[in-house]
């Protein structure tokens, strides 16, 4: 198998990277009808598998689970999840031959072996559904030509996919059809129906391609979403402790701070987040984040280049072949950081204090979001796709840090994201070493406004506001957020 993207001529690479259309509600009026009465068989019953299945069944579709024999005989968690919620469970041999749609919701790493096992069993003219394009694009998996290959990717953890559905809403979703495998031209209609079955159509659907999804998803998760949040959290915490701030306070300020700060981002974009600061603090945060953007830009570009060329996948797959040696080493090391090991204190931190006392976090988030977005767009990814994979997902990941710090973040995200996150973190810390020596507690740990008179220069403020508001991520974001109304608010601890 060779990297699918690299086999394409440039013209076709650009063509597939450029598939990006925010779909109108009217596209979903046919509901789940296209899939009604069809047999949907989900492979894998983890968080995504179970929750998507619960939604599809509650939308009137016929859902069952195919698990490996060992998982069934060993009554593993996946088997328990499925049977105790009254789903039919069977082996690949029992369920796949009758399936109209086979849904692969196993981890990336297992895709090749799972698809190799199920493909010979799949009936003529059936459909294979992914919720991530890695296997097709990066590993170049070839699917039998009579089989339709589609993707439906809810942009949220599995538990949210369920929670939003039962409250009558859904989560934003990407859908795609693989151009090499749409023999009957039914792929898009099926992807739309599946999306309705999970509730995604109520929250905004972006039509994408396997290529665009993978190249933007990898970039987002490695840089702003996981990499930068990890680096920024650890550096901020260490700085506070170094400067004599109570470690319990520092731990709490960072753990919940990333969530509170990015909550503002979710509702009002980068400018909404920056507007939570006083005028002098905003100007300072702008200056700091400009500096951070300059320092980190080459690293963001390297990540994007390695993703586009397939170098990232190649290196990661080497680690797969090596028993995940790098991944496991890094995971253990993260568990040992002082930030991870210092419990958050019991002190009450008011919502506004998370902004005023953590200007550096705000600057990190702005720099990361804008850099990731800019780098993706420069590489040929459409702004809407870039928005989803940068700004949109940042609060969702920050939410996992608020739960149980970086351990939880790295547990919830995929191994692929975790691997990319460590690559970024290891390269980013040395880059920022010199910058960090100049950071004092007014930027992190204490109220920036303390002892200042709140005065600013008119022209400076106008220039900063203008720069923030006219950034492309803000313009695209304002339009997309309007379509994704009613986002749930996160409570502050």
């Amino acid at each position: 198998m060779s990297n699918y993207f690299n086999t394409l001529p440039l013209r076709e690479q650009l063509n597939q990277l450029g598939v990006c259309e925010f779909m109108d509600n009217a596209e979903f009026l046919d509901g789940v009808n296209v899939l009604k009465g069809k047999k949907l068989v989900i492979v894998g019953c983890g968080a995504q598998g179970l929750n998507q299945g619960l939604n599809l069944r509650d939308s009137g579709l016929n859902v069952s689970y195919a698990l490996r024999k060992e998982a069934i005989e060993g009554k593993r968690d996946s088997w328990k999840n499925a049977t105790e919620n009254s789903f039919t469970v069977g082996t690949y041999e029992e369920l796949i031959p009758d399936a109209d749609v086979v849904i692969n919701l196993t981890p990336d790493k297992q895709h090749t072996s799972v698809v190799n096992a199920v493909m010979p069993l799949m009936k003529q003219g059936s459909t294979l559904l992914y919720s991530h394009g890695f296997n097709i694009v990066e590993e170049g998996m070839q699917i039998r030509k009579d089989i339709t290959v589609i993707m439906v990717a809810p942009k949220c953890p599995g538990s949210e996919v369920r929670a939003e559905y039962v409250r009558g809403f859904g989560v934003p979703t990407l859908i795609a059809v693989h151009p090499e495998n749409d023999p009957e031209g039914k792929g898009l209609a099926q992807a739309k129906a599946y999306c309705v079955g999970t509730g995604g159509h109520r929250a905004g659907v972006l039509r994408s391609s396997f290529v665009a999804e993978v190249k933007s998803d990898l970039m987002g998760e490695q840089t702003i979403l996981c990499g930068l949040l990890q680096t920024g959290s650890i550096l901020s915490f260490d700085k506070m402790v170094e400067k004599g701030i109570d470690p319990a306070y520092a731990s709490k300020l960072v753990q919940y701070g990333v969530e509170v700060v990015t909550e503002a981002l979710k509702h009002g974009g980068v400018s909404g987040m920056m507007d939570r600061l006083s005028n002098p603090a905003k100007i300072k945060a702008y200056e700091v984040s400009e500096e951070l953007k300059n320092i980190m830009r080459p690293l963001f570009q390297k990540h994007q280049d390695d993703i586009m060329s397939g170098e990232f996948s190649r290196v990661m797959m080497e680690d797969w072949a090596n028993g995940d040696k790098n991944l496991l080493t890094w995971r253990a090391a993260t568990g040992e950081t002082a930030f991870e090991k210092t419990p958050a204190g019991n002190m009450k931190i008011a919502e506004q204090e998370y902004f005023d006392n953590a200007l550096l976090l705000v600057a990190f988030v702005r720099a990361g979001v804008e850099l990731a977005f800019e780098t993706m767009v420069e590489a040929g990814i459409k702004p809407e796709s870039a928005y989803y994979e940068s700004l949109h997902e940042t609060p969702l990941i920050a939410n996992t840090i608020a739960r149980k710090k970086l351990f939880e973040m790295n547990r919830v995200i995929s191994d692929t994201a975790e691997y990319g996150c460590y690559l970024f973190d290891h390269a980013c810390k040395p880059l920022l070493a010199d910058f960090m020596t100049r950071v004092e507690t007014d930027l992190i740990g204490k109220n920036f406004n303390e002892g200042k008179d709140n005065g600013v220069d008119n022209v400076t403020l106008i220039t900063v506001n203008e720069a923030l508001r006219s950034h492309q991520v803000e313009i695209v974001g304002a339009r997309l957020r309007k379509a994704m109304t009613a986002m749930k608010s996160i409570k502050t601890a």
Partner: protein
Amino acid sequence: MSEPFVHISNLEVRYRHQTVLKGLEWKINYGDNWLICGDSGSGKTSLGKAIAGLAPFSGKIEIGFNPLSPLPPLVYYIANWYQFKDLEGQSNFYYQQRYNTWSVEVTATIQAELERFGAEHGLSFSDVEDILKKLGYSELKDSTLIQLSSGEHKKLQLIKAIWLAPQLLVLDQPYNGLDKNSRQNLNILLDQLAAEGTQLVLIGNDAELPACITRYAEIVGGRLREVSEYERLQDYTTVIAEELPEFLNAHPVHDHPGDIISMRNVNISYGEKQVLKDINWQVKAGEKWLLQGHNGSGKSTLLSLICGDHPQAYANDYSLFGQKRGTGESIWEIKAKIGLISPELHWYFDRSATVWQTVASGFYDSSGLFCDPGSLKHQKTGELLAYLGLTAYGNTLMNELPLGKQRLALLGRTIIKNPELLILDEPCQGLDIQQTRHFNELVDRLCGNNGTTLIYVGHFESQLPDCIEKKIILENGKVKAVEEIKKTEHYVTRSE
């Protein structure tokens, strides 16, 4: 001791942007136990929280704890509302989640929760066993918090407080969601507690109180006024004059053959624990049912099957609105025919929605409103708000309102689409006497002049609508009895 135990002078409490209490004076003498009553929104909860130091106030609250008493010198407040968190500190659950089965439990067990509480306050675990027994809680120790019914949650709060035995205990609406037996046992426990030195302030409008309560007051216009026991029990006699909004007078659409509900040997279990056993139940169109049973008898699980909220529905044999469950219908098609209210729904409802949005969300069966409902629905929402006396609160966020008003808005949400089946699970919990009456009259009107089918769950026999004609009683997950309620026996049934 000439000073009173609690001395409150010139108390002012603001809630959000409104002054709730102003110039309030109150003395609680040593040994006195009080009841505080008053309309929803009068400031009962604000007063309770201020005394416990949980709400900011101006003025003076002096408490003379007895240094010689063996009881802990503190005020403990039991909220009417209970927000629990999972093991990761998350509190954003959705109410259907308690019916799911997961390989990993995300909320603590009762045992763990009690151990945590005991350790925090230095209590001996042997002391709690007796309380658990009296409130019928011993068997629940291994359950997780999310599996508890609303009544069981309430009891857990009470158990903790009684175990703690503080010098002053403030109980805000302690009887909410408790069945008759539990209410009686609670009163016995509270009397014991008072005899051992804990002083009680009980907030609520309930009729059956522990004997130790001998002083009564109501809050009117932000101040406290002592009333006699006789005055307290005086009925409010407000008659609703307004006509039901026109759109609620129409017959609900009934477009299917067959019964509303038809269950054949329905069983639900979690692992070893069976919560419903061989349930058989037919509900025909237009029937008005009362569903009763002790806390934890399986009532809410049974209702969750009807509302499309239970994943094990697909392994059972029953039909809703003439269609066998799991034959291609979506839960949204089912929910479209049902108006539901329950304590759990209220618990997990999106409280950042406005009252207007909350009521209008009933058209879509969603928690919060996600789209513009259009002009016809706008108009209906406006009419119903006016009928419920909520017009002034249209743009107020749910979490800025007292519980009684929140509940009233959710009741509006329940009936706005004039559904074929109304499921009212303790609908009046948290409402004052007047609102309860108002609401039951509304239910009678809704059910009286059209073909609405009703399933009503209520513990307080004195607070039921008149139209009820049949009743089904659950006990330990089984149907204990199905009975007709003849009109002549109605009164007897209500007072049991």
